């Protein structure tokens, strides 16, 4: 579950040297209720890095959850540790397409009894 970040878990478009550190940063953001990180749960929809911005698209499993902001803040804080200072960080919350359990990593699914 807390295996090294699975970079194939989300689409990545940007400089290759940043791929691994960005995935590792996002994998440090954990949903406290289930002890699983947002990459394993499949909440990361995509990361694009261009000359000015590192853009991360995240979803949540529920629109009624008050912890959304906290998870977004934490993602930003973790990204801040690995993203070069000249790049802006943008964490965007998206609801389309809706999250489904097929997005969970193999380890996460095994833990939840799939």
């Amino acid at each position, binding site marked *: 579950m807390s295996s090294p970040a699975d970079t194939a878990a989300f689409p990545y478009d940007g400089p290759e040297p940043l791929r691994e550190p960005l995935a590792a940063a996002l994998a440090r953001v954990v949903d406290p209720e289930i*002890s699983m990180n947002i990459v394993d749960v499949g909440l990361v929809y995509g990361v694009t890095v261009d000359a000015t911005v590192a853009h991360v698209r995240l979803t949540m499993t529920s629109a009624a959850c008050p912890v959304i902001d906290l998870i977004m803040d934490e993602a930003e804080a973790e990204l801040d540790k690995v993203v070069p200072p000249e790049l802006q960080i943008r964490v965007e919350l998206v*609801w389309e397409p809706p999250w489904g359990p097929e997005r969970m990593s193999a380890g996460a699914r095994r833990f939840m*009894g799939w």
Partner: protein
Amino acid sequence: MHGRVLARALFGALAGASLAGGIAGGLWRLGVAVPDPHSFAWTGQVLLVHAALMICGFLGTVVGIERAVAVKHRWAFAAPLASGTGALCLAFGQQAAGAWLGVAAAVFFLGVNAVVVWRQRAAHTLLLAAGAAAWVAGNLLFAFGRESGAVFPWWFAFLVMTIAAERLEMTRLMRRRPAASAALQAVLALLLAGAAWSGTGPRAGGLAYGTALALLAAWLAVFDIARRTVATHGISRYMAVCLLGGYAWLAVAGAAWAAAALGGPTRDIALHALGLGFVVSMVMGHAPVVLPAIARIKLRFGAFFYLPLAALHLSLVVRLVLGSFSTALRAAGASLNAAAIVFFAVTVAGAAVAWRIQHGAEGARKD
């Protein structure tokens, strides 16, 4: 920035005052705080206000804040503002104003939940909205002066459906039988039918309601992720322990509710196994995660969180099990229930201080 801090302080004060007033009313009712509550002419009314302060004033306000934070609309805070001030009115004897502010709160809250459904149309968001509608129904009956037997099933349906909806959402992480969601909806439909029926036919209505509670406990025991997350560690395991303990009391509440409908002396067990054993255990489980999100106060989690949780559950055994044999033990158990809640509040405060000591005062508050 200053405004937000003030708003948080105001909402914290409203919820805190409701909780304190609700606990005081509950103790008074059992004759703990005064020698003889029956010397007071309005004992029945005090009973109802105790429940209104706990369910609408405290829990309704907290859940209202939680949902308002999630939808990120300023107007959504009108719901907890109305429920909190309504509770203050009730505590100071302004019955009509308090009751109608409660109706306004529930209607706003239903509106907020409609926004959630609009954003994410799913079984769990629809159930959350149905729970909000149950709160509207309960508050309307309360405002029209109906007795507790008609009001309580709706108020508890609001809390129970809110929790059930959130647990249903989490079960999506697990492989589950396709019938799980349909089964839950059938159980909650029975709950609502029981609530509606209780107003006119307390016996049949109460039997249906109690059966629905017991079936819900069985559903949660079978399908909830807590059975898996209890095998993890730290805060995830703590939350799972809170949940599983709550489910056990939910089953007790269902049996006691049905027995009370048949004339058994189990009304106190039904109400408090549900309100304290199930709902407050749930609150204790979620507080370390939700408080940082809604109050922006960070907490240091540690095994010490298990102490007030154990105190709550043990005090419930004293009150609801041993208390069946002796009124004195029941009253003692109720005092211990109150002490457990205060213990938890102190634990949370201590965890906030511990976080600040660990991380330095600078980062403790973020706006």
